[in-house]
């Protein structure tokens, strides 16, 4: 009887921690996404404003970031399968030079733009106030994923959580689906 009770307590604790992780409060929801204009690896310049009317997925990354690289193939997959649904995917590479990013990301064969935030200014704008206050602000959004809606508002913002790491972007896709289906 005791062991059954013990097992029940453990199972409940595990379920609670999973649910708590999934329902973690996301920052900046409903806020207007900070505007930016950045050059990309493809040589073109992209600004957030030019994609108004579309859903945008942004992933903040650096070439040495293991969690970013683990998500990379799934971002490419997401980009391919959601492009026809009016979803644009971007990587914002933080504080690295073009040559390094170009060389390092070849393996992922991204079909979407990789934007170069060489001075970290855009990443800094997306660092939620009060989150990780002891870090340099441009470091905070690394490995995060955001969904920005057609009106330019942040609708999803998942900061890195390695204990519930979602490399396959399951939650992000669920959110995207719910936004796309509710139109």
């Amino acid at each position, binding site marked *: 009887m005791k062991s059954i009770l013990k097992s029940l307590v453990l199972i409940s604790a595990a379920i609670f921690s999973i649910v708590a992780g999934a329902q973690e409060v996301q920052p900046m929801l409903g806020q207007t996404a900070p505007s930016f204009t950045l050059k990309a690896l493809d040589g073109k310049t992209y600004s957030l404003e030019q994609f108004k009317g579309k859903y945008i997925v942004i992933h903040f990354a650096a070439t040495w970031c293991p969690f970013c690289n683990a998500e990379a193939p799934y971002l490419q997959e997401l980009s391919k399968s959601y492009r026809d649904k009016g979803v644009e995917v971007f990587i914002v590479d933080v504080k690295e030079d073009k040559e390094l990013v170009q060389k390092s990301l070849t393996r992922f064969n991204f079909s979407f733009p990789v934007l170069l935030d060489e001075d970290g200014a855009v990443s800094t704008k997306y660092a939620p106030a009060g989150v990780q206050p002891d870090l*340099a602000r441009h470091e905070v959004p690394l490995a995060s994923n955001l969904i920005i809606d057609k009106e330019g508002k942040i609708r999803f913002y998942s900061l890195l959580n390695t*204990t519930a790491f979602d490399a396959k972007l399951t939650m992000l896709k669920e959110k995207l689906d719910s936004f796309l289906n509710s139109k």
Partner: protein
Amino acid sequence: MIMMNWAIIIVPVFLLMGNKKFKPADIVKIKVPEIVVSAGKRAVIKMEVEIKKGYHIQANKVNDELLIPTIVKIDEDKNITTGRQKFPPAKKFKLEGTNNFLEVYDGVFEIRIPIKTKTKTPKGEHILDAKFHYQACDNRTCLFPKSIGFSIPLKII
């Protein structure tokens, strides 16, 4: 008066430098006890590295060329040569939701560095300047790669 003006400029500059250096030192602490070695002989430096609780750093050998391996670089010295560094075995850190592992260090570990002194090395205290280069993550963030300088104290007898 001129001295006071200089103090007003210099003190804040040092305070700023101190703040800049404080953060990485918070993640990684390095202790190197003094090595006593005879001129012309060999010895082994045993440096103790402590990683802040909750953090890990990439190991010396990484399984992906994009990752930043932990390395120790020792400045060249005309009297002392260093040999092949020996890092501890790495721990495996699972990337949840994937089949991938990172090779990492956490907690406290030791790196051993063999040295050889030349016969003509002057006796007395000697310092080797070195840098520890690493990239750290905890469960909330991955920090940009950093280098911290440290000294290796030697006593040549």
